[in-house]
């Protein structure tokens, strides 16, 4: 009797969460999936190996408002003609689109560091990938918690 109840409840919960997921997909705009993120990264790096390190991704771990999140990406590099950062590509996991921005540097940059303000639709992971002049790719990722504003106004 006990076992039967247990099985029925698990089935019910499985069914309910499936229905809920279906509801969520139709109610919300398209979300980037991990697969889209992987594809977007592959578009930049091709088949090359992406190593972790050298890139520092600075985003507040808990943001005040997902509409405007300050972000700084810096890469340890001498930025000489022979050894410099060519570009920095920033991606996200759960916005409708996986790309955030691409930034192109060079030996004239002096320092491989950019700042901007980004939008984050939900709590998610951000990835920054740097391409160096020797063709190598380096990355860093951070998890950001996004809360929503308490009292949202009607559309004016």
């Amino acid at each position, binding site marked *: 009797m006990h076992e039967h109840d247990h099985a029925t409840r698990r089935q019910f919960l499985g069914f309910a969460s499936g229905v809920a997921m279906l509801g969520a997909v139709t109610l919300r705009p398209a979300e980037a999936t991990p697969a889209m993120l992987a594809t977007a990264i592959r578009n930049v790096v091709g088949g090359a190996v992406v190593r972790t390190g050298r890139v520092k991704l600075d985003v507040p771990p808990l943001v005040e408002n997902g509409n405007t999140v*300050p972000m700084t990406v810096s890469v340890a590099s001498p930025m000489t003609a022979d050894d410099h950062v060519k570009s920095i590509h920033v991606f996200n996991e759960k916005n409708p689109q996986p790309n955030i921005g691409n930034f192109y540097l060079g030996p004239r940059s002096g320092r491989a560091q950019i700042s901007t303000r980004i939008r984050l639709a939900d709590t998610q992971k951000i990835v920054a990938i740097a391409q160096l002049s020797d063709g190598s790719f380096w990355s860093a990722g951070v998890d950001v918690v996004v*809360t929503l504003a308490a009292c*949202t106004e009607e559309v004016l």
Partner: protein
Amino acid sequence: MRARATIVAALLVAAFAARAAEIPQAERRSGFSFMTSDTQSMQNEDTANPGMLWVLDGEALWNGKAGASGKACADCHGDARASMKGVAARYPAFDQALGRPVNLEQRIDLCRSQHQQATPLAYESRELLALTTFVAQQSRGLAIETGADPQLALFIDRGRALFMQRQGQFNLACANCHDDNWDKRLAGSAITQAHPTGYPEYRLEWQSLGSLQRRLRGCITGVRAQAYDYGAPELVELELYLMSRARGMPIETPAVRP
């Protein structure tokens, strides 16, 4: 010292027994102090503060000719840095002709129609926001003086009554959050004391600059009450009360807030 404090406390309690406790002077804090350091630095640096974009636009409007008069604000008021200094710090102010208080946006529109023979700018239009922010920014750093005029006393009382009255489906008064529960959190956001020290301000939530009336309408909608229209006397009275409640605090326009 303790005896005097007790007497003062007793008087305060007696005076405000019927209403929520107003924030003691010594405990007043600007909304700035409730923000993270990232958002604070956004406000502090003029070239990083998005509100300054509206100040730039406002300066251009100040110097541009308008209306049938062909006059610019600058033609009568000269350099705003001098002539507008201190103005925002004492608004809303009493308008003799109308016999009631007007806010800075309304004053600018009155000037436009009466002295420039130009059509008034729409509430919350980019132009009106830009001009208002430009004028208010000239008072940045100055202490708020709003409400000293005795003719405003009646309207300040009305504004206070609006601040204290419960409204909407949530049956909440402004005071319930902003007098009684500031520094606690509402769904992850800090509840501030609601001092309008930096309006018009850039709100991250709006991703734009907006007026105090826009914020008030948003709050009133937030408690599921019907918001007053822009320019309604109730909103001006609320603005007047809030500014007089913030007397002594420095103007921060253009502020940045979450």
